[in-house]
């Protein structure tokens, strides 16, 4: 009996209305939160979460209110939808339009889930004439350790940001890395001008000698990146002194050290997405309307080189005209360096087809349902006028 009641609740229209109403509240809160937070953080915190902690008074950090997050809400909507169709709709005829609409909505919700799980967003920044075979994740760093191999090749070990914790250790053939301190966002200053709130820890070797670091809250603005830094000790398997290096993604290049006669390199850098092909920027152009600063168009003329397929061709990437290649979309996102550098956004979204399918289904369903309502209303009116 209780089961029956629960099923009734889960399939009820009342629940639908409550869930949709709550969806509006959540979306509204997430929208106004974007004044203080980056859009990426907002999506993670409100829509891709089970519980969304809402900072009611931003800047004050007084209350963080727990709200049901987008993931929870989406699941509830899906359950409600499936239950309603299972419990009620099969009893009525002529509900094909409704079925079509709801199936379309379901596909759209699933599309957003898959995008969240499988989608990737990276960037490729290229100077004119530069060639690159990887994109970077602007918000994530990785600890890269480059091991020299006997045949003159190199092996790159990349430790993702999620595993960089204070005290974490990582073992490699011949040495162990220990993360003494990891700061997701930080400020680095020369030791002599650093204030009291800086960390007491110092590097004992490498490029970071003589610098002090202090922790900062993470950046939220869309156009600003975290300045991450880490103190990493290198412990050779044979024992002996363990030099401590200061690594940061603001430092260019890698830092070298020797263990058992081999020269290794290490760096904290923006996480990379490697491609089996290369892109070379031939020319970037940026036109403005005469006498104004309003951009008329920006475009990147690129050469795509793929040794596997033997491809070597030119393409032009511009607004509303991205390059789609091997499941990735490269679109013109920005420029820098006095119009000599292009910034391409690199997006991977294997679930891209679902919204298209959903759109067609829901639109057709809505047209079906509403036009049948309209026809009925007109027929009723005719009857009442004639009678």
């Amino acid at each position, binding site marked *: 009996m209780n089961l029956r009641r629960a099923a009734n609740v889960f399939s009820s*229209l009342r629940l639908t209305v409550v869930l949709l*109403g709550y969806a509006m509240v959540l979306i509204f809160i997430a*929208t106004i939160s974007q004044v203080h937070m980056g859009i990426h953080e907002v999506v993670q915190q409100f829509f891709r979460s089970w519980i969304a902690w809402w900072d009611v008074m931003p800047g004050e950090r007084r209350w963080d209110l727990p709200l049901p997050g987008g993931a929870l809400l989406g699941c509830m909507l899906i359950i409600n939808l499936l239950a309603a169709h299972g419990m009620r709709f099969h009893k009525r005829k002529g509900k094909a339009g409704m079925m079509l609409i709801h199936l379309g909505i379901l596909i759209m919700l699933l599309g957003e889930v898959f995008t969240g799980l499988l989608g990737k967003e990276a960037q490729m920044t290229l100077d004119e004439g530069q060639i690159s075979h990887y994109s970077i994740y602007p918000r994530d760093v990785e600890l890269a350790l480059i091991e020299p191999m006997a045949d003159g090749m190199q092996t790159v070990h990349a430790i993702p940001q999620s595993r960089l914790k204070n005290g974490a250790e990582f073992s490699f053939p011949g040495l162990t890395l220990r993360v003494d301190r990891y700061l997701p966002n930080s400020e680095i200053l020369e030791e002599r001008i650093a204030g009291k709130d800086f960390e007491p820890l110092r590097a004992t070797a490498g490029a970071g000698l003589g610098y002090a670091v202090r922790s900062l809250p993470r950046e939220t603005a869309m156009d600003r990146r975290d300045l991450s830094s880490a103190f990493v000790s290198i412990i050779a398997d044979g024992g002996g002194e363990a030099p401590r290096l200061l690594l940061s993604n603001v430092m260019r290049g890698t830092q070298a050290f020797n263990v058992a006669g081999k020269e290794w390199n290490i760096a904290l850098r923006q996480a990379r997405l490697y491609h089996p092909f290369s892109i070379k920027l031939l020319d970037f152009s940026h036109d403005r309307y005469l006498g104004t600063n309003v951009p008329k168009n920006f475009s990147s003329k690129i050469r795509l080189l793929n040794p596997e397929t033997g491809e070597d061709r030119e393409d032009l990437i511009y607004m509303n005209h991205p390059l789609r290649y091997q499941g990735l979309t490269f*679109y013109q996102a920005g420029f820098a360096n006095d119009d000599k550098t292009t910034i391409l956004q690199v997006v991977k979204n294997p679930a891209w087809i679902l919204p298209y399918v959903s759109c067609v289904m829901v639109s057709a369903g809505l047209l079906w349902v509403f036009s049948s309502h309209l026809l009925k209303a007109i027929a009723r009116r005719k009857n009442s006028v004639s009678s």
Partner: protein
Amino acid sequence: MNAPPKSFLAWLPPVLCVVYLVASVMMAHRSPAGFDFQGFGRLPVVANGRVQPLDSLARNHLLAMQAKQAVPGEGSPASPAAWLAELAFQPALADTRKIFQIHHDEVLGLTGLSRGKQKSFSFHELQPAFPALQREAARIEQIDAQARSSYEKALMRLTRNLTAYNQLKHALALPRMENIEAEMLQLVDRVAAALAAAEKKEAPDAALMDDASARMREMLAWEPMCEVYAVPTGKGADSWRKLPDAVIDAVETRTLPAAAVAYARMGDAYRAGNVAAFDAAITDYQQWLAKQQPSHANKSRAESLFNRCAPFYLTMVVYVAAFLVAVLSWLRMGSTLRKAAFRMLLIGFAVHTAGLLTRMLLEGRPPVTNLYSSAIFIGWGVLVLSILLECYHRNAIGTAVAAVVGFVTLLIAHHLSLSGDTLEMMRAVLDTNVWLATHVVIITLGYSANFLAGGIAIAWILGRRFASISESSSASMRGMVYGIICFATLASFVGTVLGGIWADQSWGRFWGWDPKENGALLIVLWNAIILHARWGGMVRDRGIMVMAVMGNVITSWSWFGTNMLGIGLHSYGFTDAAFVWLIIFIASQLGIMSLAWLRVPHGTD
């Protein structure tokens, strides 16, 4: 006493509307005696990145400076084009026109002027305050635009207007020049002679060299102060040149371009008060344009005619009249006046449509390209839907609500036009007619439908509270609101999803949770909630009406509120005054919604 025949009364108000419209257009066409400023206003230039008539340039500057197009004061130029001619050719006099509005007391305090009775001040009066304004502007430049106080924003607006004014002053002539055509010819002559001498390695004539270089320096100093491209040299908008550049170019060809000669002659004639010479210079140049630049000349002519006719202003007047007649029809002579009101609405709609189409032709774009045009189009969409409703229901409710919503949206458009050129060029990211024609148009129709449903619901609530509407009217209003909400759901959903598909096509991601996208989604969700609540029997008539009014709040948030957050791809139109009005609008809607819950004096629920 014979009552006039009914058909006469049903036709009289519409005929009066047509008479009013025809008279207005003829007035706009009439050219007053004296200088041919209308012809002057039709001349094309490139400013703000597009070919436009001088008339538009003058109007948009005046609107930005003082929120109206008429120049105040006794003996002031009668039209914006006349004002521009004065500014270009007799700047000392133009500088005394009180056209700079200063609302903010602290900004006024900085200028050292006192308000007294006047709100507007002249360039001349403000001149002593320039050093102080410049100092403050340089400081405020460093502050993020979002973080500026109202004083800082007002000050920046004033300095921007002063800069724009100064640029406009230098657009068509160099204020210092006394005899413009002669001086330009001399410059070409002297500089060419000096160059020829230098090439032949003759002994330099020191006086000639000094004179030529002084004249050149003056042109080079003029160039950065001039922001209008007045001289056409080739086909596209990019090939236009500024006057000083064109004069320098002429050194090589030894002949001044037609545009330079024309503006120089106009200037000389204007100062000499020589009407015939001024008009002749314009006629000559127009003939040259008709041969050399026919497309630019035609477009410019059409736009200046459009400006002078002001179709949306005329539409607003007709809508107000239609509303009054529709209200009257509920009091007496129902079907006669209802027909008259509907005919007036159709006349207003025809003018509205003509204005919309003209804008589309001028821009070569689909109807909605910026916030201003979205207001025009929302009003138009409401009219289309309510004309259909009125054909079906025939009770003047559709007419009355459409007239009010049409009027209000055009009023909003008028206020939005104060921020500058409404036919501005599209930023690269929006430069795609396919998506502008589908996503933007459909989603804007969704806004129209929600506002129409909300408008009818307000009429229902007010009608029940303050008048006793009949059960049949009430029933037909229910039908209207339900039908319109169904349409709104379809348009909002399809429009929103098409936006996602545009994003996927252009950026490889379907949905980004950007504030404008979220705003569109809120509308879709709200429409879905209304339909589900109705189907589930959770709300009855009154509930649906209240929810439809709430739809106004949510749609206005999506339309304006999201832009005010100043974030995301869609933040293209921000105005402070709009924020206050949005709050007032939302408060009024909440007030009306609460009115619905008060006890109804007549009838029952």
